[in-house]
């Protein structure tokens, strides 16, 4: 009996040693940090590069980066893992998930963690639109990582062919240009409707033109916020979009086709998209393109646009030594030289002023002028309660409802006013539900 026990033990030991031989030696001494993200393709490779650099830079911690699908899938995987008490230490969550994460009771505020672990991060150095989006009671809740903002990409040759030097500043003039481009045959369609148009052409229309999206400073001042975008100039914008769709000025790519292809193949003359689309568009040399600011209404002053993208959240319930590693990794990420590199290889904006100045003084924007548009647009003017960001609960669901209503508008099943009214009604129900669940927490 004793003998068999011992042989079993030695057997297990042998198996352990054998397995240890396969795993890289460092994994045994190092503290492992799980990092789930939503960056696929080239972006995913860049994340792996960052992680490798960090792991090579020290010997105490090993960050393991895993792509868990798109943003929706990452937040859902995180929730499932949290419920099973197997959450990773770091997760990348999109800006729409801010309130859900903030009030989840499942996170450690990043600024608190960094202060506790005595890490040197200059939190006042983050650019304003980024900091204001992810702050709660004056503190950053998550680590800014990949931030973008929509800009207007356009086909230079097609604009010249129609007799324009470039897109106009105002929506009214820009609209005339798109109609001219189509009627003169310079391009088959004026614009390709990106999948995230609700962000680039609706939310950012509201921030640039200082129109409220919801009451209580877009939700910053309380959970009892209500959507009001059906009573603003957005109605005019949606009316315009509906007209464009009906006149074939703007093309909806639909399932199985990427909207960006419609632009890069030269079929459509413009494309409203995230500045992070730079990475992809630059790799398609078939068209001569440039980019510029989003248009604004002629009678309104253009202000800052709003950010999109994601930040890194730290999950609760891990060991202190693991949090040491998390803090070290986040400190590493916030370093300006890494920020500059990330900005240049991906197209995301540099998230700190120092990183921006570094890229600028190195002459990066002389060779890549369109890369600077996003940050200039984000920093334009003084942010107002309407342009600092969006703090709405259940916001993914509310956005889904808005998109569904917009589809009915594009199909002429509803007028722009009806569609927006219905979206607001559905959105407000979701806000009330969120308020009920989180009463007293914000």
């Amino acid at each position, binding site marked *: 009996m004793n003998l068999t026990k011992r042989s079993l033990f030695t057997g297990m030991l042998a198996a352990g040693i054998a397995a240890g031989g396969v795993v890289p030696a460092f994994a045994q001494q190092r503290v492992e940090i799980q990092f789930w993200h939503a960056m696929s393709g080239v972006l995913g490779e860049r994340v792996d590069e960052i992680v490798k650099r960090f792991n090579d830079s020290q010997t105490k911690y090993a960050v393991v980066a895993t792509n868990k699908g798109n943003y929706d899938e990452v937040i*859902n995987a995180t*929730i499932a893992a949290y419920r099973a008490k197997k959450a990773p230490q770091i997760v990348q969550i999109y800006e729409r998930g801010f309130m*859900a994460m903030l009030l989840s*009771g499942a996170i450690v505020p990043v600024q608190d963690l960094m202060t506790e672990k005595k890490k040197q991060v200059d939190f006042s150095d983050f650019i304003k639109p980024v900091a204001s989006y992810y702050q709660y009671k004056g503190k950053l809740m998550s680590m800014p990582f990949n931030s973008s903002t929509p800009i207007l990409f356009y086909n230079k040759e097609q604009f010249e062919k129609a007799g324009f030097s470039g897109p106009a500043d105002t929506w009214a003039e820009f609209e005339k240009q798109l109609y001219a481009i189509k009627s003169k045959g310079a391009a088959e369609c004026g614009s390709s409707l990106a999948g995230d148009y609700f962000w680039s052409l609706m939310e950012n229309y509201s921030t640039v033109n200082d129109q409220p999206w919801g009451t209580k400073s877009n939700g910053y001042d309380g959970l009892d916020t209500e959507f009001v975008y059906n009573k603003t100039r957005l109605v005019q914008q949606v009316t315009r979009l509906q007209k464009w769709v009906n006149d074939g000025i703007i093309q909806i790519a*639909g399932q199985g086709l990427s909207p960006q292809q419609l632009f890069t193949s030269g079929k459509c003359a413009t494309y409203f998209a995230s500045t992070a689309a730079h990475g992809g568009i630059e790799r398609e040399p078939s068209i001569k393109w440039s980019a510029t600011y989003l248009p604004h209404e002629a009678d309104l002053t253009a202000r800052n646009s709003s950010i999109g993208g994601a930040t890194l959240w730290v999950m609760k319930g891990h060991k202190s030594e693991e949090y040491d590693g998390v803090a070290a990794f986040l400190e590493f990420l916030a370093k300006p030289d890494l920020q500059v590199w990330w900005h240049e290889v991906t197209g995301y904006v540099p998230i700190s002023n120092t990183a921006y100045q570094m890229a600028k003084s190195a002459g990066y924007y002389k060779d890549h002028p369109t890369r600077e548009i996003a940050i200039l647009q984000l920093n334009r003017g003084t942010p107002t309660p309407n342009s600092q960001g969006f703090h709405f609960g259940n916001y*993914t669901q509310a956005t889904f409802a808005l998109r569904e209503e917009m589809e*009915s508008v594009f*199909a002429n099943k*509803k007028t722009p006013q009806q569609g927006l009214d219905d979206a607001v009604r559905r959105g407000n129900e979701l806000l009330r539900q969120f308020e009920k669940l989180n009463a007293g927490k914000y």
Partner: protein
Amino acid sequence: MPAPAGSTRGLKRAHFREARLPLLLLLPQLLVLLLFFFIPALRALSQSFVLTDPFGNSVQFVWFDNFRRLLASPEYRASIGVTFWFTLAQNALTIVVSLVLAFATDRILRGRGFYRSIILLPYAIAPVIAGILWAFLFNTAVGPISFVLHGLGIDWDPNRHGIDAFLLVTFAASWKHICYDYIFLIAALLSVPPSLLEAAAVDGAGPLLRFVRISLPMIGPTIFFLAVMNFVYGFFETFAIVDAVTHGGPGGATMILVYKVYIDGFVHIDLGSSAAQSVLMMIFALVLTVLQFRYVERNVNYDV
């Protein structure tokens, strides 16, 4: 003399003298049902009465609020309508097309196996792939079939027109399921006694008449079985196709109930509402199946 009902009961008793053996034989199936049906169903039922945040840190018991919210929502009612028409259209299309195919290949002598293999192929294709395939073929901007339709002056645009998207999903779902129905129908047709058909042929009935008057009534039970199966398929298993082709859009035109359960539960993590929806779906499915058996089955003749 018709066999009295008592004699069949006597037969069963003769085969199973004690209660233990049948229970033992049933056990594996009961266990599977318990694990994969009863426990999840009970959990769904208990979930449907609470409002919970995604992370599960705050849970409120809300009685029937989730159900009330659903039934009051125009979107949910629209989804019921879409599901009804979708299931009906898909069912009719699938059965009619597979009947025609079965009828046609039944009469083919040369290369019969070849035709059958081709017709069976779609069943081997994953629903997502099938969905993408259809979405691409009918894509407004680049799809070859859209190109033809536009050439014919048809304003085809599933990205905008709900009816186009609905047709597209219905076609894709039926196409995927025709093979299933076909296998059953061809087998049923083979079991129609040739003597009857030959007798009818001698009496001068053509192939079509023989099919309608003899084969069709004889394969009635199979058709009824397939109608139930198609209904279950349309109700629960077309999720992947909708996900790949339309995502439930445009404007909810293809938002069938099962896809809405998924969106609300797994994308938006509104577990209370999603659970309430699955409970309602279970009820709908039960009621419809019972209705089918009560009213449709009455007209099916099992005795021929």
